């Protein structure tokens, strides 16, 4: 774990130089380089949603109580990376398209997924006992949206670039991109495990308190 954290910290420290080495883009020049953080964080956003959905399935249908800790952790990370994506996106859009926001399929469905996981966080905080199962139901519905978001740019005419852009990138842009994807994935895994472990320990402390009350 410590090794992963050191590695991730190192990778992020070096990232600006890697990004600086990438060439300028034809129409957008320097501005497009926010993409190297925007796309990995979007991928982590969708991954967090899928992890939350899978853990919800384990909690509800395979009856594993500890899966709840992973749902909570993944949902919070979905909010985090979703917020990052939804901030870097408009920052880029303002320069590339001239507007902060458009209501096209990709942006609208991403915002919707983000709101679903914000709703999950609110539910867990204020819903009282039993909200772990309720939240799991909500997260399952949220995960069902992820494939739709990903393919929406391919089937609707949108401002947002389609998914075919990624495999066709030139090598000089591909290297910093996959470097940043690796760094973000490391960060995601670290945060997920830390948060899930924290949640597990919180649940244990709570159980101990309850046991003490009964004694």
């Amino acid at each position: 774990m410590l090794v992963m954290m050191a590695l991730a910290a190192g990778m992020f420290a070096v990232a600006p130089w890697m990004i600086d080495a990438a060439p300028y883009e034809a129409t957008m020049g320097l501005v497009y380089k926010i993409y190297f953080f925007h796309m990995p964080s979007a991928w982590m956003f969708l991954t967090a949603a899928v992890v939350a959905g899978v853990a919800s399935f384990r909690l509800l249908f395979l009856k594993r109580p500890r899966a709840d800790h992973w749902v909570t952790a993944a949902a919070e990370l979905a909010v985090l990376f979703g917020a990052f994506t939804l901030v870097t996106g408009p920052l880029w859009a303002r320069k590339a398209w001239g507007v902060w926001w458009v209501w096209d399929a990709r942006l609208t469905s991403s915002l919707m997924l983000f709101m679903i996981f914000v709703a999950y966080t609110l539910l867990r905080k204020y819903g009282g006992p039993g909200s772990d199962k309720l939240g799991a139901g909500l997260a399952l519905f949220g995960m069902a949206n992820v494939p739709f978001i990903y393919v929406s740019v391919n089937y609707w005419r949108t401002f947002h670039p389609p998914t075919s852009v990624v495999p066709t990138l030139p090598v000089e842009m591909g290297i910093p991109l996959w470097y940043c994807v690796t760094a973000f994935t490391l960060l995601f895994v670290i945060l997920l495990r830390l948060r899930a472990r924290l949640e597990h320990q919180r649940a244990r402390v709570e159980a101990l308190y309850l046991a003490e009350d009964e004694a």
Partner: protein
Amino acid sequence: MNAFARIVWFVVKKDLTVEVRSLEILSTTMFFAVTVVLMFSFGLVVDGRPLNDVAAAILWVAIAFSGTLALGRTFERERHNDTLRALLLAPADRPALYVGKLLGILLLLGLVELVLVPLIGLLFNAPVIQQAVPLLLLVGAGTLGFAAVGTLFAAMLVRARSRDVLLPIMLYPMTVPVMIAGVRGTAALFQPTPDAAVAQFWLSLLAAFDVVFVVLALWTFEPVMTD
């Protein structure tokens, strides 16, 4: 009638019997929906003329708001005297209970929409009579999608704290696709030259969402309602 259909019929009959005695939820929800339409009309009418496509938007927002209220209050009724627990303890298939509750909500919302749609036609000169059949299909499919998710979430939240505000918080993001499809389809029908092809596209999208939501809800109802 097989066991599943019998349970569904029992649940629907029970809800209908309780509601017919006082008509409380139906009349108040209907009046609320009418008020919502009027409030939005006051806000969105400029120089005595409504803005473009506003009629479709107002209709669906009114359905969403009054639907949320109706869902909350229907399940609030189940909370009193713990009748929901009694339902769950009965030797009945959980999905049958869900479908029974869903049909009750659909009936309630259907009656409200029977008043709302002509009202929209009246206030905005929208061609509701000429487009009656496509409109019926669109509004029906959209209400089914909204109610399918809403019934599941409202039933889930019956024992939760802050349930009044948590229901819209959970429901609205999830039903955004239904709202978008409903509004765009209805707007296509309300144009000066109605665009049937566009409306058809949104209708098929609504049908797809309905299938996904209903199946997912049927699947999730049982594990979520067990304690």
